[in-house]
């Protein structure tokens, strides 16, 4: 089209690529014909995760887009073509290949690593760490090297050190300042960081100014420092900061900052309004922003400028959290407290756990001005909310950085979150967006979800979203309906009590007597599985009985776990993780016969994937004949009891943890509950079974067993809490009986013990009063009820395969015996997986 303008972008790094994405996604290619020049061979790649190149990721997997993205989008990408001149008079950029006219030009040339002017810095094996080609050079140089040194102990320097370590070099870091990461941490934090990094075998030398580099004796190079001390090494990587790549801009007379950088305004315009600059080459308000997020914000502002919008760049928060060499480092706002003369500081240092936290607060104690974290970033998100949103601090600000076990509660409730707080990061929904939706008429959670898409991405924010919506509805005087769904005006706990007290044994009887009369009588995918679980907890009838089968989720219906292509995975019970060689062989034979992908699970058993619906009964017939029983991996029920090998084999073990794990798993197998339940049993305090991350954790002592409860791994890890000590076997069973039944009775649907415990009024103390002191007088009943579940256990699969009527369900098609032809498998690493 003749009306199209020529837009040239110099630089195909992360920020330049982000600008292209903005242009493509927002229809700007009708207006501009876009040409991108990249000096490197590769199209734009993820520089933030560059070090993963050495741990197996290749250029293609680091790339920010598919190989044909530019071509199919209609953007011309010219890689390996460096721009050597910008001719502002003729509005052309010049490369060795030719001259290209532009109407608008964007500089996204980024930065280059600063190499200190040390004699010898250009010797062979003196390298930098910035591009994939740099990494190839480092890798090549490392092949004949045993030692490596990184000059510079900042963020990038430590990443480079990690890379050298990954190449099996004896690694040292040399830093000019008195501590590592001088920009982000203070002396205490730097000292802790040094200890942690030295513990990884990386030598740390601070206050060292390299004077020259010369031939070494034992190694290729010798670095000579200011006090004539020396360090020999085969390989040197310079990572002493970055400098903006502003040479093209300098040569064509654009305004440059005193210490480099192309000066831009809020629209990312340079001193020539036809030319913009973004990313690390741009100098905004005397600042260069060396992080990717501000670069992306500049790209958005530049897009807006190019297309007549009004989005501007207004600076960026440089708060960061990082994991360097496995060590958490976090820095928020004025972390050093040197920009606010009246600021006050709190410090917490744990020399055993090696954690350091510092708060910088305003003189009136109300606002968080900055924070510094070393060794543990778990409070970073909360602190960032306080800082970024100017939330008033609690009366005891120190509680925010004290360890949680001392009673502090540093998480923010929904009421304390500001309007700008991000609730759903997948769809970028803030609390303010949610409030606006409610004000516009949304009256419940599903209304908010439909309007905002919140919680429809990864789903990780479901609980937070619900608490925010409930809180906002309550704040507006809307009575929050705690009904389980539209079919019952009751909570799960109320339904449980109704079922138990009235002895109701079927869903149809329950909905007939207690369902809402103005709705249909079918129930739904919320109440049916919940009631199925309640009925099973109370009466333990087979879930595949005709009255119960329509209530079950597909996994319970077919007693296997549906995978994304409609096939199932099969997990037989391996109590305590103990299995005989003969049974292992059977698992292998069955997997082979039915072409099942095999994987060991985190719960110490073996998962067989890719089973077709119609094969499940035959598979289970063979497994049951070999002595296996169902593992309930598909159910909201007891999953596994993980164990370490215990006193039977281990020289440290003080009790038979495997024996106990098998006892417990066989006692509670088949118990249906509000959510899945996992146990762990460790044979000594070394805790190899990771019992403290389980719903029920048991750790052997010299005198018996310590019981921990309400732990969790997964999305929100929670350490289990010590509940009772030195229990004998009998008392341990009885305590767990009561605890589990109390949980089954009172928890919400799909509520793990950890969340149940956090929402329990009265907390752990109340739980101890109920379970250990019988303050409600219900313990006999809880124990009786558990005993009835234990006594009525039967393997659901054994029950099903002996019943032809139940087996009819296991057909892919009722009018054809052949399998579903659309399930396609492919081979990977010697096994089948979905194509």
């Amino acid at each position, binding site marked *: 089209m003749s009306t199209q303008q020529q837009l040239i972008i110099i630089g195909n790094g992360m920020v330049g690529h982000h600008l292209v994405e903005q242009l493509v996604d927002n229809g700007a290619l009708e207006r501009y014909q876009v040409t991108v020049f990249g000096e490197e061979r590769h199209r734009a790649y993820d520089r933030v995760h560059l070090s993963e190149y050495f741990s197996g990721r290749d250029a293609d997997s680091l790339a920010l887009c598919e190989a044909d993205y530019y071509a199919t989008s209609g953007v011309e990408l010219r890689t390996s073509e460096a721009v050597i001149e910008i001719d502002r008079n003729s509005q052309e950029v010049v490369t060795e290949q030719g001259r290209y006219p532009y109407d608008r030009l964007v500089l996204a040339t980024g930065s280059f690593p600063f190499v200190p002017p040390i004699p010898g810095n250009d010797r062979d094996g003196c390298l930098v760490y910035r591009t994939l080609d740099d990494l190839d050079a480092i890798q090549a140089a490392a092949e004949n090297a045993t030692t490596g040194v990184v000059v510079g102990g900042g963020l990038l320097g430590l990443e480079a050190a990690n890379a050298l370590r990954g190449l099996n070099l004896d690694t040292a870091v040399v830093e000019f300042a008195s501590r590592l990461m001088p920009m982000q941490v203070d002396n205490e934090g730097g000292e802790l960081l040094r200890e942690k990094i030295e513990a990884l075998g990386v030598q740390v030398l601070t206050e060292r100014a390299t004077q020259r580099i010369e031939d070494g004796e034992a190694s290729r190079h010798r670095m000579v420092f200011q006090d004539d001390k020396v360090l020999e090494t085969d390989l040197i990587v310079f990572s002493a900061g970055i400098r903006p790549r502003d040479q093209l801009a300098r040569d064509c007379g654009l305004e440059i900052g005193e210490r480099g950088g192309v000066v831009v305004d809020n629209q990312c315009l340079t001193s020539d309004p036809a030319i913009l600059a973004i990313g690390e080459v741009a100098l905004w308000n005397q600042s260069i922003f060396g992080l990717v997020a501000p670069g992306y914000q500049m790209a958005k502002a530049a897009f807006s400028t190019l297309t007549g919008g009004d989005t501007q760049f207004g600076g960026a928060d440089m708060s960061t959290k990082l994991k360097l060499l496995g060590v958490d480092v976090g820095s928020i706002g004025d972390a050093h407290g040197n920009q606010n003369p009246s600021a006050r500081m709190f410090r917490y240092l744990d020399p055993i756990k090696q954690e350091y936290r510092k708060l910088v607060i305003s003189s009136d104690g109300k606002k968080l001005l900055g924070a510094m974290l070393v060794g543990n970033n778990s409070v970073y998100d909360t602190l960032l909310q306080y800082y970024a949103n100017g939330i008033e601090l609690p009366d005891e600000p120190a509680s925010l950085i004290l360890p949680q076990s001392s009673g502090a509660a540093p998480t923010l409730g929904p009421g304390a979150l500001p309007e700008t707080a991000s609730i759903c990061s997948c769809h970028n929904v803030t609390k303010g967006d949610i409030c606006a939706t409610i004000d516009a008429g949304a009256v419940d959670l599903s209304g908010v979800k*439909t309007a905002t898409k919140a919680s429809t991405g990864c789903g990780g924010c479901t609980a937070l979203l619900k608490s925010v919506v409930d809180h906002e509805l309550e704040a507006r005087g809307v009575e929050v309906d705690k009904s389980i769904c*539209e*079919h019952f005006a009751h909570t799960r706990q109320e339904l449980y009590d109704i079922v138990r007290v009235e002895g109701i044994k079927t869903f*149809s009887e329950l909905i007939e007597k207690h369902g809402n009369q103005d*709705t*249909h*009588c*079918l*129930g*739904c*995918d*919320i*109440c*049916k*599985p919940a009631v199925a679980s309640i009925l099973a907890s109370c009466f333990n009838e087979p879930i595949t009985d*005709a009255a119960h*089968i*329509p*209530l*079950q*989720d*597909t996994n319970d*219906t*077919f007693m296997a776990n*549906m995978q*994304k*292509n*409609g096939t199932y995975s099969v997990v037989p019970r391996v109590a305590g993780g103990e299995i005989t060689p003969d049974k292992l062989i059977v698992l292998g034979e069955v997997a082979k016969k039915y072409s099942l992908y095999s994987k060991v699970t985190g719960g110490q058993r073996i998962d067989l994937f890719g089973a077709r619906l119609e094969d499940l009964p035959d598979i289970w017939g063979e497994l049951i004949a070999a002595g296996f029983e169902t593992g309930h991996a598909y159910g909201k029920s007891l999953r596994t009891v993980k164990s370490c090998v215990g006193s039977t084999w281990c020289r440290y073990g003080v009790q038979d943890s495997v024996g106990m794990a098998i006892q417990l798993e066989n006692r509670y197998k088949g118990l249906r509950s509000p959510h899945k339940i996992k146990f762990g049993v460790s044979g000594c305090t070394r805790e190899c079974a990771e019992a403290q991350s389980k719903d029920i954790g048991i750790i052997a002592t010299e005198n018996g067993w310590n019981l921990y409860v309400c732990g969790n791994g997964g999305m929100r890890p929670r350490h289990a809490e010590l509940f009772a000590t030195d229990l004998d076997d009998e008392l341990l069973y009885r305590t767990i009986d009561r605890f589990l039944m109390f949980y089954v009775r009172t928890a919400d649907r799909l509520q793990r013990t950890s969340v149940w415990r956090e929402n329990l009024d009265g907390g752990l103390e109340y739980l101890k009063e109920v379970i250990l002191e019988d303050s409600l007088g219900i313990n006999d009943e809880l124990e009786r009820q558990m005993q009835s579940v234990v006594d009525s256990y039967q393997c659901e699969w054994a029950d099903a395969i002996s019943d032809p009527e139940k087996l*009819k*369900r296991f*057909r*892919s*098609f*009722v*009018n*054809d015996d*052949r399998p*579903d*032809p*659309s*399930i396609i498998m492919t081979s990977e690493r010697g096994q089948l997986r979905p194509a």
Partner: protein
Amino acid sequence: MTATALKHTVSTDTWQPLCTKADLVAFSGVAAWLNTPEGPAQVAIFYLPRQRSQGQEKELYALDHFDPFSNANVIARGIIGDVKGNPVVASPLYKQHFRLEDGQCLEDENIKLRTWKVAFRGEEVWVAG
């Protein structure tokens, strides 16, 4: 998939018997092959025996077995329910709801499953392909 996957090769766009009442599962679904003018299709058949007098009008529904959100043939294995008076099936994988009456997805107005007429003829289940 090919036409040979069909047992019943009745001419297109007419009523065909797919299975018997005994093949169905009350308040749940089964899958069957159906011959359609576009070729063989996997159909989910749901059976909701009448119980209360009010509301629910039909006992049988036939929808696509194919779940467009997961690209797997799994719809017949979803849970039956009703949402605001409409009988629905929830996808067993990602839990979207589809109205049994017309196949409309309640979470995404752009997604709609195909539906077919279905009825008992004696003990047989017939579908209009």
